[in-house]
């Protein structure tokens, strides 16, 4: 059997790579980065929103704004209602004549005081303007803004109560109403953002993995050649068994490393969830944050949008298709990298010999990366579709397309078949060429020279 011994090569490649310092160091460093990023996703929004309960405590008490001693209030027209007081802050009404003097005092003063002017009313919109001291050491912009949000909230509540809204109906009356203009059957804003970001992220990740491990295979084969270990190996097994075992071993390393990264990321996310955004979501503070930011996304069903945007995420068949695509893509580039490694006799020649392969991969990656990023008007649709079926780019483009449901089942199958056919051709080429060139020493071989040598040997 031409590949007898491949399992031993696989096992040796796998275990030795896992034992290597480079693998250990690289994995640890990346794991730490992943853990930090995943923890940051949870913790940072919560930290910036003021910790548990957000900027306001669960009981609605003022927290950050406690050090504002007085709020001077000037109303252009008399209000039909009273502003409800805020703990630790005195409300003091001022007249039009006092306004300018007070404004100057507050602006250049050394007390944590603020001034509110209320304009409008009647048939006009109300407008609330808050003024704070210039010196941020006395009163920070952040604290002043936090305080203004609460006063505005109280103002709105008082306004609703004054026009006859009952206390029970108040939450309903004050609920945010979000609007979104879209085309029926078209993409929402979140879908559009996901549609542009996901292909980029997915193609970058797969590009990095595929190229990293393909180059590792090339380097490993070149090392075996340059250290002459290959001569010892091929007395016990055929060259084809060596490359098959090596590719399978490296694929297993890739899967192991991905699993480690995934596990670390998930663990970091879950462990920090009680301190982070998940808790904030539960407490309903996201509404406040988004409201404060003036964004109208508080009631948006983000997860629902994501599941609509990324339907493949919840489809086992789609996940299976993605795994097959990535494995085929890895095999395609790994086989070519194996040939490159076999074509060089010295490690110093490897980098220059790998350049054409890297350029090929970069071209495929760009084809999957750039068109979705600039496809605002849909004029890149044809190029994007082409990238799904072109075997050089499909390993990078297809996974995100499947995830986002941009390609139907039949097209997916067709794209995978194209890619599999290319892998088959690459395997045939490798099988023919590898055995002939593996003991070659001299200048690095070009692909045409390899093929010529293989033909001649037959």
């Amino acid at each position, binding site marked *: 059997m031409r590949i*007898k*011994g491949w399992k031993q090569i696989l096992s040796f490649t796998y275990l030795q790579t896992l034992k290597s310092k480079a693998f250990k160091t690289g994995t640890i460093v990346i794991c730490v980065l992943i853990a930090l990023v995943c923890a940051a996703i949870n913790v940072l929004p919560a930290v910036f929103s003021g910790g548990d309960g957000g900027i306001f405590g669960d009981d609605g008490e003022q927290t950050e704004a406690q050090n504002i001693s007085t709020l001077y209030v000037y109303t252009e027209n008399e209000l039909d209602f009273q502003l409800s007081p805020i703990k630790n802050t005195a409300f003091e009404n001022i007249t039009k004549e006092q306004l300018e003097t007070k404004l100057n005092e507050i602006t250049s003063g050394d007390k944590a005081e603020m001034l509110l002017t209320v304009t409008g009313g009647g048939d006009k919109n109300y407008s609330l303007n808050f003024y704070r001291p210039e010196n941020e050491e006395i009163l920070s912009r952040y604290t002043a803004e936090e305080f203004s949000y609460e006063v505005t909230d109280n103002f709105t509540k008082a306004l609703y109560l004054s026009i006859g809204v009952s206390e029970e109906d108040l939450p309903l009356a004050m609920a945010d109403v979000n609007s979104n203009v879209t085309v029926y059957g078209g993409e929402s804003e979140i879908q559009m953002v996901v549609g542009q970001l996901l292909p980029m992220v997915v193609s970058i990740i797969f590009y990095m993995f595929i190229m990293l491990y393909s180059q590792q295979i090339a380097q490993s084969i070149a090392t075996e050649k340059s250290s*002459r270990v290959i*001569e010892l190996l091929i007395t*016990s*097994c055929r060259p084809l068994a060596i490359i098959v075992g090596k590719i399978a071993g490296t694929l297993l390393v890739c899967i192991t490393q991905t699993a480690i990264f995934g596990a670390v990321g998930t663990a970091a996310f879950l462990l920090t969830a009680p301190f982070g955004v998940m808790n904030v979501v539960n407490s309903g503070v996201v509404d406040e944050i988004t409201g404060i930011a003036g964004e109208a996304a508080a009631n948006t069903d983000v997860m629902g949008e994501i599941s609509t945007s990324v339907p493949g995420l919840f489809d086992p068949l789609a996940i299976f298709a993605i795994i097959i695509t990535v494995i085929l893509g890895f095999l395609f580039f790994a086989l070519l990298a194996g040939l490159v490694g076999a074509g060089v006799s010295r490690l110093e020649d490897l980098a220059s010999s790998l350049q054409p392969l890297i350029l090929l991969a970069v071209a495929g990656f760009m084809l999957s990366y750039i068109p979705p990023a600039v496809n605002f008007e849909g004029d890149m649709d044809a190029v994007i579709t082409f990238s799904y079926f072109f075997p050089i780019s499909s390993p990078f483009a297809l996974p995100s397309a499947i995830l986002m449901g941009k390609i139907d089942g039949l097209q997916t199958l067709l794209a995978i078949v194209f890619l599999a056919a290319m892998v088959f051709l690459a395997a045939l080429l490798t099988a023919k060429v590898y055995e002939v060139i593996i*003991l070659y020493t001299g200048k690095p071989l070009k692909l045409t020279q390899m093929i010529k040598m293989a033909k001649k040997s037959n």
Partner: protein
Amino acid sequence: MSLEVKHISKKFGEYTAVDDLSFEIAKPGMFALLGTNGAGKTTSIRMILGMLSKDTGEVLWNGEPMKPAQENVGYLAEDRGLYPKYNILDQMYFFASLKGIKKPEAKAQIDYWFGRLGIDEYRLKNAEQLSKGNQQKVQLAAALIGDPKLLVLDEPLSGLDPVNADLFKSVIREETAKEKFIIMSSHQMNIIEEFCDDLVIMNRGKTVLSGNLNAIKRQRGRENLLVKAEADFMDLAAECDLQLKENTPNGVCFHVENEEQPKIFLQKMLAKGISPIKFELREPTLNELFIEKVGESNEN
């Protein structure tokens, strides 16, 4: 058991590396492959071991086409090779597993060979941490693991100090005694003379001499006369038509045409009162045969 190499040839482009090489090792023992640098020895070994495809000819092991990956073959390559960054013991287990040896058996054999070759203390080191000589010992152990019936040693003693060369020789002797088929390539003629029964001498890919070393020597006869004396005897040698081969501090070596020439020469020396310190009639050495045959081949 037998190994038959039948008319194998190999060309690299226009360059003929091996041209119609044939020999047979019909019984266990040591077979030598000799040749100058670039004579085609390593290419021949690679073809025998199936690493390189043959342009013509065949290699038969027990009458069947040789399939080294399926046979138990031990190979010590001329260009020593180990994974520089990997632990020696892991590499040995790996090489053993490729030969189909299970771990407990591999462990026993590794323990034996590492002890025998005096490299036990290096088993947990990386190859790059070992000296060249010790790497060579690890390679020999890797070649011997699995107790192969066919052992191919390409320049096994090159680069070794005398102590380790002696150790290698004793191991090779032990393996020869185990009725193994051993092919050895070397530039060191004294080693080949010490170990080998049969040989092939190659030059520029062609076979210039092959057969049993003792038979070749017997066939050539005692054609070398080594003489050493205190007085000058060169005129007498010229009178007897002795052809000067070389003049060394160890004596003067002449080529003799027949058995009468040395007798007449000795009589004349004694008649002139010249007492030889050394007067030795001997068969050609392998070194002499080698230089002669390679020289003839180059002239052609």
